[in-house]
């Protein structure tokens, strides 16, 4: 009978390595989140968010603009990195995020570039670059600005 123990051990080790990698990535995100909260006085946060977008659909054949206008667009879900408000809502997307089932490599996509991160150092370098972007600064400022607007509660 073939001995499968070595294969099973390799599978378990791979799963443990993947778990370690994912924890490491979560810690990096938690660290950024803490620093975003700190500089925004808890008015902005950072995190991974699931977004939805319309997928390009081929027009009907033969093409019928009238029919096409009544067909709802096909939607797909994708993960992104975002700046959110202090309650982890109203996400402003900074980049798309993809992750291998082993944790690494992971992929950050924005401004026409896909940054490939093969380890912790790559991920930290790529995230630093993303955080230096003007749009990241603008997103944080927008969340702070919204948090500073007084709510329209009726005066009792």
């Amino acid at each position, binding site marked *: 009978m073939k001995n499968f123990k070595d294969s099973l051990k390799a599978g378990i080790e791979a799963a443990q390595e993947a778990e370690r990698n994912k924890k490491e990535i979560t810690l990096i995100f938690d660290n950024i989140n803490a620093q975003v909260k700190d500089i925004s006085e808890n008015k902005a946060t950072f995190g991974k968010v699931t977004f939805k977008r319309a997928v*390009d659909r*081929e027009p009907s054949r033969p093409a019928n603009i009238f029919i096409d206008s009544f067909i709802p667009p096909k939607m797909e879900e994708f993960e992104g990195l975002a700046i959110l408000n202090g309650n982890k809502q109203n996400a402003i997307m900074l980049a798309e995020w993809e992750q*291998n*089932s082993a944790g690494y*490599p992971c992929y950050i*996509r924005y401004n026409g570039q*896909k*940054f*490939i991160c*093969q380890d912790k150092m790559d991920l930290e370098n790529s995230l630093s670059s993303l955080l230096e972007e003007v749009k990241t600064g603008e997103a944080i400022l927008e969340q702070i600005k919204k948090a500073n607007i007084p709510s329209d509660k009726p005066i009792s």
Partner: protein
Amino acid sequence: MSNKITFSWWNTSLSPHTKENLSSDEHKAFVLVTLWRLINEKSVDVICLCEVSTADVEYISGMFNGSEFSIYDGTVYDGRKRYDICTIYKSNLLQIINTDLITKIQPDGKIHAAQELNFQIKEFQEPITLYVAHWVSRLHVSEDDTLRIQLGTLLMDAVSASIEQRNIENIVILGDFNDEPFNKSLTEALFSTKDTFLVKKKPRLLYNPFWRLMVNKDLHPCTTELWGGGTYYHKNNKTSRWKTFDQIIFSSSFLRGNTWYLNEEKTEVYYNKEIIRLITNTNSKLDHLPVISSIERY
């Protein structure tokens, strides 16, 4: 209905690194004539070019105005670095979905492994992804520099993500790698091989048909062949003037009997007397031959 897609790759030498927009009118005209020949003599559907500037892409676009071809201008200026690629494709055959420059941030700056172009094959509503690469010259980075391995690994990671995360089976990599099919960057980092048996058995491996095109077909003493075997001519190289730097590499799905297959008979280095004369002429800037490969549908 089209049951084949023919790809071509060519380093045009129009705007090499640091010598942007300095090509002669004759050189530019010759590029247009060669593109016309590739389309009309070889029925090419997709042509990826490198060493082109934004102005070169604009010039080339003029030839395709009102035709069935579209151009994706992939020239990117990223700080001091430039990515010098464009892709001409038949727009009734393919629809471009999105593009990305495959990038890694290192302590000493960014490296770019390829441009990823995600297409939909219109007739069959099937995805196909191209990776278009122009790796650094050996004049700047030597053959054994670790950067070449990093570029191969980075490209392999991008290809793996397309296969595993996005379930894309049809992947074609076209480029001037400034490395030959046997160099470690392409064999040990990108995992491209000449072994069709292994590619069919191990789907993560890639097939590189350009191993077969590293030498000319003439057996000594017969010497009628114009072409010296290879795609790049370097007159002053002491041991081999011709190198096979330009290659088209395929994912295993094209060998495993899926809907699209590689028709290897149509893999070739394109040349004629005129282009060989220009490449071997010291006054001409041209130093690469176009390469062609074709996939067909069962």
